[in-house]
C-alpha cells in the first residue's frame, strides 16, 4: 500500500519533471527540472530495495553529471530565453515517440512473455551492496575492466577537447593580446 502510493507519486513527479525539461525554453528551468527528476528516479531504486543503486543514482547522476551540466550552462547567459528555430517539426516528435514505444516494448516483452525471476534475488543475510560487489567482481569482471578503459578514454578525450589553450597563461598577456585571442576564439 505504502509502496504503491510512493510509486505512483514518484512516477508522476518524475514524468512532470522530465516533461518540463523537454518543453521549457529556459535553460535554467531545464537543468533544475532534470536534476530533480534524477533524484526522483532514485526513489524507485529505494522502493525496490536496491539501496545501493539509489544512492549511486544520486551521487553520480544528480551529483556529478548534473554538476557538469551546470558548469556547461554557466558558459552562456542563462537569463535569456533560448530561441529555437525548429525546422522539422513533424519528424522529431514522431521519431521520439517511436523510440519510446520501442523501449517500452523491450522492457514489457519479458514481463508479459513469461514469469520473470530475479537472477540475483535480494538476500536479507548479506547486504545489497555486498551482493552487487560479489556479482560485479566475479561474473562481470571483464565489463568492469572495460569500464575503466572507457573512463580513461573519456578523460583523455575531455581534456583534449576542453583544454586546448591549457598551456597559455592569461595573466602574463596584455589586455590587447587577450582581446585578440578572445576575438579569435569567438
Amino acid at each position, binding site marked *: 500500500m505504502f509502496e504503491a502510493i510512493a510509486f505512483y507519486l514518484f512516477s508522476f513527479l518524475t514524468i512532470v519533471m522530465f516533461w518540463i525539461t523537454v518543453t521549457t525554453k529556459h535553460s*535554467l528551468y531545464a537543468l*533544475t527540472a532534470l*536534476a530533480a527528476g534524477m533524484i526522483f528516479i532514485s526513489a524507485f531504486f529505494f522502493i525496490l530495495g536496491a539501496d545501493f543503486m539509489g*544512492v549511486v543514482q*544520486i*551521487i553520480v547522476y544528480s*551529483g556529478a553529471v*548534473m554538476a557538469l551540466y551546470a558548469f556547461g550552462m554557466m558558459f552562456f547567459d542563462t537569463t535569456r530565453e533560448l530561441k529555437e528555430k525548429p525546422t522539422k517539426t513533424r519528424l522529431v516528435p514522431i521519431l521520439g515517440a517511436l523510440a519510446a514505444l520501442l523501449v517500452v516494448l523491450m522492457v514489457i516483452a519479458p514481463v508479459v512473455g513469461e514469469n520473470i525471476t530475479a537472477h540475483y534475488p535480494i538476500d536479507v543475510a548479506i547486504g545489497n*551492496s555486498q551482493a552487487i560487489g560479489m556479482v560485479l567482481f566475479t561474473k562481470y569482471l571483464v565489463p568492469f575492466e572495460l569500464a575503466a578503459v572507457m573512463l580513461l578514454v573519456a578523460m583523455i578525450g575531455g581534456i583534449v577537447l576542453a583544454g586546448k589553450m591549457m598551456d597559455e597563461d592569461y595573466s602574463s598577456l596584455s589586455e590587447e593580446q587577450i582581446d585578440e585571442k578572445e576575438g579569435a576564439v569567438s
Partner: protein
Amino acid sequence: MHLFMILFPIMLTLIFSLVTIPLLVWMERRVAALIQNRLGPNRCNIKGMRLGGIIQPIADMMKLIFKEEFYPAHIKQKFYYILAPGIVFGAAFLSFIVVPYADDITLDGFTYHIQALPIELGILWFVAIASLGVYGIIIAGWSSHNKYSILGALRASSQVISYEIAMGLAIVSFLITYDSISLNTMVQAQGELLFGFIPAWGIIMQPLAGLIFIVTAFAETNRAPFDAPEGESEIVAAYHTEYSAMKFALFFMGEYIAMSASSAIIVTLLFGGYQIPFLNTQVMHQHINLVLIALLILVPLLSMGFIRWMQKNNSCDLSHRRETKYATILITVFVICFESFLFYLLSSGLSYEQSSVGIMILQILSFAFKVMLMNFVFVWVRWTFPRFRYDQIQHLGWKILIPLALLNIFFTAIFVILAGV
C-alpha cells in the same frame, strides 16, 4: 512505546541539528573572542540573566526575523531566489539523519535502531545528500545576477566536487578496515580495544585516511580555511550577497547544520561515535552498578567545579552576582534530585531493559559531548588559520589528497590481506 521508540531518533535529529544552531553561533563568537583575547557577546540579557552570553543568538535571530524583507529589483527568477536557501538548509538537514546516536536497543522483543534512517548505506547517503547542497549554492549564484554571487557559486561548487573524491577514497579505506558499510557496525567495531588497552577508534586504525577525511569535511562545509567561496575580502559575501533577512538566516543556519552534521560523521567514523572509551555496551551491561556509582561521584564533583569556576569569573557587579546565585541554586537542586534518583536506582536494582535505557542515555550524552568538541575544533581552526588562495585549494585537493588517499587504500589493502583477517 513502539511509536515513541521509532520517533525518538527523529526527534534526536531535530534536536541535534536545530537546537545546536544557537549554541554553535554562541560558541563561534565566544571562542573567537577567547582566541583574539577579547570578551565577545556578554551584554545581552533577560532580566539580568546572561547565561554567559547565550541570549545573544536569540536576539540575533529576532533581529533577522524582524528585518525588512525585500527583493532586489534585478532579480527575475524569484522562485529560484527563494528556493536556493531552502535547498542548502534542507540538504544539510537531511545529511544528518544517518548518524547512529546510540547502540541498538531491545525493548519488549523489538530491536530499535537509534538512527533516524536505519539503512546500511549511511555513509553513502551522507556523501550523496551533502553533494546535493551544492545545487542550492549554484542556484543562489545564478538567480542573484551578481558577479560576486556567480563567482562564489562557481568557486564553491568546484571546491566541493574537488574534495568529494578524496572524501570518497578516504571512506573506502575505512570500509576495508571495518569490513562493513553500515555506520552502526563501524561504531560497534570501534568499541573494541586494540592490544587490550587502546580504544580501536578510526583515527588510530587509519590515521592518514582520518586526516584526509577531516580536511575534506572542512572543505565540504565551506568553512575556513576553505572559505574562498565566501571570501568576504575578495567577493563581498559571494552567493548570499543579495540575500537579506530570513533568507540569509536560512543560509546561515544551513551552514551551521552542515558543520554539525560533518562533526557528527567525523565523530562516528573516527572518534568512536557514541562509544564511551573503554566501556562498550556489553561491558556497561555487566558492570551497570559500577557505572552508576561512578556517576554518583562524578556528577557532584563536576558541578562543584563548575560552580566554583562560575563564582570566580561571574562576580563583577551586583546583577552578575545575583545571576550566579540563581544558577548555583538551580544546579544544586538538580544535582540533589539526580543523586537521589541514582540512590533509588542503586537500592532497587536495575532490570536488563532499564539498564539498556540508561546506557542509551549515557551513549547519547557521550555522542553529544564528542560532537560539541568536534564543533569546537571547527571553530578553533577557523580562527587560527588564514584562508587558502583558490589555486592552493585546488592544488591540495587534486594533487595531494587524492594520490595520498589512493596510496593509503593500496597499503591498507595489502596489510589487510597479509594480516589474513
